[in-house]
């Protein structure tokens, strides 16, 4: 069971309090009806599957209830960082540097 830092509660807590919520930084278009089929397909279905750092979303489901973002290395299963929803992607280079 992983430990996950909730950026709202500011505590590092057991994974069993959290739920996974898919890839992060996929923004729902302001006006979906103006999207082409290809754009909409991209938004709806196409997801990254990286070997290594992955931007993803979690929800502190049993705690504060907030959705937040995380960078998790899919190889080591380690969280490089977590940060609030609606904040920009952290710089990957510096994160990997921190982890090493």
């Amino acid at each position, binding site marked *: 069971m992983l430990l996950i830092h909730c950026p709202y509660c500011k505590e590092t807590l057991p994974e069993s309090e959290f739920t996974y919520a898919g890839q992060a930084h996929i923004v729902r278009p302001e006006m979906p009806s103006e999207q082409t089929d290809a754009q*909409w397909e991209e938004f*709806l279905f196409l997801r990254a599957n990286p070997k290594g750092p992955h931007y993803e979303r979690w929800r502190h489901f049993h705690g504060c209830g907030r959705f937040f973002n995380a960078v998790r290395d899919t190889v080591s299963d380690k969280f490089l960082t977590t940060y609030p929803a609606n904040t920009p992607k952290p710089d990957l280079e510096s994160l990997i540097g921190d982890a090493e």
Partner: protein
Amino acid sequence: MSSYRVAGKGRVDTGKPVDFTFDGKTYQGGVGDTVASALLAHGEHLMGRSFKYHRPRGAVAAGSEEPNALIGTRRGPGRFEPNTRATMQEIWPGLETQSQNKFPSLKFDVGAVNDAAYMMFSAGFYYKTFMWPRSFWDKVYEPFIRQAAGLGVSPTEEDPDHYASRYLHCDVLIVGTGPAGLAAAKVAAQDGLKVVIVDEHSEAGGTLLSEPQAKIDGTPAWDWLSATLAELKATGVKVMTRTTAIGYYHQNFVGLCERVTDHLSALPDDTPRERMWRVRAKRVILAQGALEKPLVFHGNDRPGVMLAGSAQTYLNRFGVLVGKSPAVITSHDSAWFAAFDLADSGAKVQVIADTRAEVDADLIAGAKSRGIPVKLSHTVTATSGRLRVKSVRLNPVDGGSVGAGSNVTCDALLMSGGWTPSLHLFSHTKGSLTWDTDLTTFLPNETPEDCIIAGASRGLWGIEAALKDGVTAGEQTLDALDRAASGTHSYAVENDRAGTGVTHKELLTDKSPGKAKAFVDYQNDVTAKDLRLAVREGMRSIEHVKRYTTNGMATDQGKMSNINGLNIAADALGKPQPKVGLTTFRPPYTPTTFGAFAGYHRGEHFEVTRKTQIDGWARENGAVFEPVGQWSRAWYFPKPGEDMETAVRRECVTTRNSVGIFDASTLGKIEVKGPDAVEFMNRMYTNPWTKLGIGRCRYGLLLGDDGFIRDDGVIGRFGQDLFHVTTTTGGAARVLNMMEDYLQTEWPDLNVWLTSTTENWSTIALNGPNAARLLAPLVEGIDINDEDFQHMSCAEVTVAGMPARLFRLSFTGEIGFEINVPAPMGRQLWEALWAAGQAYDITAYGTETMHVLRAEKGYIIVGQDTDGTVTPQDCGMGWAIGKAKPDFVGKRGLMRPDLVAKGRKHLVGLLTEDDSKLEEGAQIVFDPNQPKPMTMVGHVTSSYQSDAVGQPIALALVAGGHDKMGETVYIPMPDRTIKAKITSTVFLDPENTRLKIAKES
């Protein structure tokens, strides 16, 4: 005293005799004995039969790595466990044990013909032997394999024991109570630090229990041990014995299985048999020691052939001589010490044969002083003895060639092929290993976890080295916790036995290698020949060799066989060992009961079961329940003598003719409140909400952004900024999660909040032509009629004196109400309505009747009539879509090419031609005469008997169904093909006349 017990040796209290049985015969041991040590004390080596060849086997080890001596243990009805290691099971008065894999008896076993058919069972035999002919599989091969395969027998009765689990948080977890672990614990034990040290054995001490000759700082090892344990406990260290660290998971999460009662004769009340500890440690120290390797030679599996270190343990810890005239074959110094200990306790050691040409002069002198013959540069080529070793054939080796052998009579053969660091838990951490050429073994390298590995588990032999390494591990651990070690810890050990040795593949033999039965994996009966055959047949990776031969795949996970197997495979491949690689160790470290994993989650507590406030009434009134999501819901209410069909038909008829009462409390409820509530509702649901008046409610349909139906429910507006949303029972949590997701991450600017009120309300539905008549007198605050409270209205009122949110809606096609009262008042309201309903012959109905009544009206159940690929149009519910809205979740999705394509499956009604009831899930075809496999064009989603319609009804998804009204489709069943006509989904009262409340005259 039993004849192999040595007076004054060991830690077993023979003054406290313990009687137990093995295969029906009673044996006596003492407190502190294991089944294996107690049997060995009686000279019994034969403890089981092997898995594949049913060869006689005895204990080869003294710990949890034991591959052979697996027994069944019994403690009265229901308490039988197979595959217990006799070397770990402590005896207690009345314990019943039995050997395994034998028929009819342990000493005479007919399955041993497999042994004669050895050639047939070589590597990959499953893959080869049972391939052909195909027809033999069911009748011959599979029954044979089932008979032959599997260790022991499964228990047949329900386990009456209780199992427990706890979380444990600590600063330092130390695995292993040998010298390294204890030394680390002494350093780490500080005020304010929570330190836990665990050991799988019944007492702490590890190697120290087998080496009483050592003196630590002048103190005899056992005195040092008891003083150290007392000191650790006094400083608050949690010392846990009979506790196996079974797995090491991410971020220092370690599973410990504690055996709480398996050693007790009387089971204490309220005490679990086993407890799983889920430990989260800031730092972990692994000090699991090393495991001795067997030597691989023909006949190395005969009862009485045993690891030398284990023989030493049986003597020193248990006071048992494993033989009175043992022989020794070794490639490592440690076996010499074992031989000396046995000799000093009265055994006549027949010979010490060493594969090496040179050994330390002190060892030679030690043998000489004890009168033990020594043979250097020797190999062993055979053993004899049917049920126990009687002699061993030793041959000189000169320049790689094996000379003529001579037999040495013996009653036990002690062997040592050197030691392998125990890297199991380290490997669970994805720790990397490095090959050490000198030690011919893998050593731990780096781990991503906050963990240190110490002592023999990183290849340091001897007590002093282990103690010192434990100190270092303790200091490094304190350092990592930003603590300073107090004082200095240093150790000097006398009579230490740090030795050296060499490692072999299978020993040289004078036999034809194809005939040698030199076992590598005892538990799976894998020989050196099998491994070489696997390589010859093309296996290159150790993972392939493992699977082809099953080497290391038994319940011992190759604790004794992996390195020997690797050495042989590497030799066969002509590659160095690290190029061939080691197979992966996976949790659990030792076999673990299902009970320990399940913990409290069995029986009534198996999983969360949610119950409504009406549950008690339903139980008292004979309801039959069904699980719906996590809920236990009343399914139907049979009267005495009624079966389900009769009860459901009565409930349906009574509701349609008069009135029925239904517990709808499980419906999800969400309070949507805030200035942007209506905007939020417009964005979430397909329907338009702006014009919904306060005091009115509307059916809402929720899609995903892919355009498929996710949920539905009736939503009432209780204020300009306040909606009372209902969801399906199963969808409640999912819908709230989805809404929160959009609100938090897509529309954080909206000023609206969601509060789950599912459990705040008990919700009771009244339906039927008499529903209004029943309810009206109980309601204060509004008049129940078509003018003041028309269909699809809602209001805050008082019902039977209770504050209520009242909805007028219908999921049955009858006049219907849903009354929400604060949850704890639910039963009170139910009983008030029930009492008032007696005048109308009211019936309570359950979920089955609810399903029938709604199906008669063609109302969908999300998740039954839809499956995540169904759009509103597919269901004929295009009317629920607010087309004028600029956007809602799913609007763009509904325009996707696939969703507007022709030929999609549509929800339709089906009426069978022969009035038979269809099976839900049955497949539908257009042409029953087409060749098989037929093209399936849909399936039945719902199907019920319907008295109101007068014949069975069904809902079905059928390709292009909306354009095929009146056409016939076919439902092929195993015994016949059923014809059905496509109809509207609304079978009853399409004009909704039954919803009107008649004016009371």
